[in-house]
């Protein structure tokens, strides 16, 4: 038996520990939440996390070994789609910048899904230029008092906690006066209003923060270092997109191709050309993702990931638009404009009209395609940044 806290790198050892978990907590007779907590405590939640925080310091790739054993045994999952922000963005940030107390308090209920998280980053006046944000946090004793407005907050209506960035020093340039907090969404100063989208539903919210008190113990990283901390969050957002292996014709191309096959009477030559181009584009994107995955597995991650979201958004928009046009008269109808509050989002769900409208968001959410092109041009191709007039000015002197 190796000493405690040694990284577990042997797949057989992971299998053994997974079987031990299953033996002690038979999923057939254990409450799902109890099973998930036991799984976390056994270090089998996210094996690349540290001992004591749901992991075993194992290589990330070995998670698949655990997942396969658990799936074969019919063990319950933690429904990651309900807590994407928590799992994909808050957790890695807490792990990197959180104190031991913060990790202890937040990570376990986050992973089990008991506590859903949301992200209070974007503002009406700070979208692509996130660092210009205006929500203020003012120190008062052991707390910070937060006032401002956030927007595009998915899951805010279900969330127990939020990751929040706010301006704590308006006298320094914008990137330097920001601090990163964990905000309690049950605070009486937090008001969540649904933000209805062009699809009719409201996945997102506006969040109004009025005199919200955040204890200083809920600060992540140093005061004024919030921009650096937020980079961890945002980089993880991009890692989370497009990580897994996809079969051919997954996603929007599958929908359009199925309609083409099932409805010969709708076919036209012009749409045939566009469909074939889209099919090639989708297959090239799939192969690009597969190649990226192979590079990661081989331990040589490339910069290609930066482009995957860009390609995905363009294809989703082209192909969903094509399908509505192909449907002809049926494309004139929409399934339902009722304001719904979906807990998870399925880009390929519902009907063609919904998919067309929802796909418009793919090139905006999580970094617009324009910002992603800047990132590729500057960080991958090494082209110079646009001259910026606001970089060294104190935030309070910026034109707004």
């Amino acid at each position: 038996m190796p000493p405690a806290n040694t990284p577990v790198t042997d797949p057989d050892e992971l299998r053994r520990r997974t079987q031990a978990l299953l033996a002690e907590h038979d999923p057939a007779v254990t409450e799902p939440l109890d099973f998930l907590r036991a799984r976390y405590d056994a270090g089998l939640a996210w094996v690349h996390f540290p001992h004591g925080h749901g992991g075993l310091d194992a290589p990330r790739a070995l998670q698949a070994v655990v997942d396969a054993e658990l799936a074969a045994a019919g063990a319950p999952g933690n429904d990651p789609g309900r807590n994407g922000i928590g799992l994909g963005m808050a957790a890695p940030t807490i792990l990197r910048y959180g104190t031991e107390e913060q990790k202890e308090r937040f990570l376990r209920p986050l992973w089990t899904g008991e506590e859903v998280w949301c992200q209070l980053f974007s503002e009406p006046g700070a979208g692509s230029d996130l660092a210009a944000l205006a929500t203020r946090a003012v120190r008062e004793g052991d707390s910070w008092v937060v006032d401002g407005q956030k927007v595009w907050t998915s899951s805010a209506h279900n969330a127990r906690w939020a990751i929040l960035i706010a301006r704590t020093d308006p006298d320094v340039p914008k990137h330097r006066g920001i601090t990163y907090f964990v905000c309690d969404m049950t605070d009486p100063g937090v008001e969540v209003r649904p933000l209805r989208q062009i699809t009719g539903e409201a996945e997102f919210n506006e969040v109004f923060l009025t005199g919200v008190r955040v204890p200083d113990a809920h600060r992540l990283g140093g005061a004024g270092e919030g921009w650096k901390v937020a980079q961890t969050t945002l980089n993880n957002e991009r890692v989370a997109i497009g990580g897994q292996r996809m079969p051919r014709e997954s996603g929007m191309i599958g929908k359009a191709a199925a309609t083409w096959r099932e409805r010969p009477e709708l076919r036209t030559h012009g749409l045939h050309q566009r469909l074939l181009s889209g099919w090639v584009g989708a297959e090239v994107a799939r192969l690009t993702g597969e190649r990226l995955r192979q590079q990661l597995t081989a331990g040589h991650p490339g910069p290609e990931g930066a482009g995957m979201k860009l390609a995905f958004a363009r294809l989703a928009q082209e192909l969903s638009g094509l399908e509505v046009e192909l449907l002809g008269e049926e494309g004139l109808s929409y399934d339902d404009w009722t304001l719904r509050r979906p807990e998870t989002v399925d880009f390929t769900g519902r009907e063609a009209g919904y998919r067309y409208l929802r796909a418009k968001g793919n090139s905006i959410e999580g970094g617009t395609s324009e910002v992603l092109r800047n990132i590729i041009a500057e960080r991958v191709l090494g082209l110079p940044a646009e001259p910026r007039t606001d970089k060294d000015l104190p935030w309070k002197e910026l034109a707004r």
Partner: protein
Amino acid sequence: MTDLLYSEIEEELRASVRALLADRCPPENTLARCETGEPYDRALWQTLARDLGAASLAVPEEAGGAGASVREAAVVLEELGRAAAPTPYLGSAVLATTALLALVEDADGGDGGAEAAKLLASIAAGERTAALVVPLSAMPGTGAFPPAVRADSAGTLTGTVTSVADAAAADVLIVPAEGRDGPGLYAVEATAAALAVVPRTSLDLTRPVADVAFTGTAARRLAGAEQAPAALERALLTGAGLLASEQLGIAEWCLTATVAYLKDRRQFGRQLGSFQALKHRLADLWLEVVGARAAARYAADALATADPDAPVAVAVAASHCGELAVRAAEECVQLHGGIGMTWEHPAHLYLKRAKADQIALGTPDRHRAALAALVDLPVPVG
């Protein structure tokens, strides 16, 4: 599982070929050569084929080759594309070699098979250079054996094939011809009487095409109706799939050269590359290059492993990479501004190669049309 990466051996091969081309094939040499009567760099070709063994990669050891695969040949093509190198690699080491290899692997024990094996070994060793006598625009998967050349019972050939790639550099021609008992593949010496190889004024200065006229030309029959159509199809499919790697190399050169120029060139008191309108165009181009690498690797791997998905892989790669190389070369010319329009700057060598490659072995449009049947997206009726 399909391997879309480059192995260490492939990276070493790439480094050798790149170093050779950097040393022996700078654009100014190619430009100086392309208007002479000797557009091919024969000395470079000898070094590449004979000393580096690049012509033998896809040929098994027992047939006199290096026993690698078309994956390695694809890496060579990437580098040849990146240099717009004037060598007959596609015609000899890909098209003719694949056709002969198909005959050798499917040998019926006759004289033709032995002749094909001998030819294959000498081409793989870099002792001889061959060309497959089909129009460069010939498309795989169309099923029809080209009837342009007829063979009579004495085995002499009559007919003309236009726009044959690398024919002028070849000392032996592999000729599909229709005989009395059906299609066959024939070998013709470039020195044969009653043979005319007439170079065309070619769009592509670095891979010129020629018309090949047979007027009762003596030929040796390599294979008959049982083997010839399949061998020809395999050559065209392999050629179209590997050409995608050359197109990737062209696009990579164009992207790299354009990025370097936009960092260097200043207008309006700043580097041109700092303008967002240009950065976005290059980011989009980069993304398509990334996709091309995945598609070209997949096609090469599918061909190397005789994957039943190879026809789909080739159609996808040919469609994407064929469009991409042209777009990259067009962007390269445009973003270089006036200098990009000059004969002196090498951008036009890549534009001409890219545009000719777009037509070679099936246009992107034809490859997409082929996909309609391959992946069940039927063409509209009426």
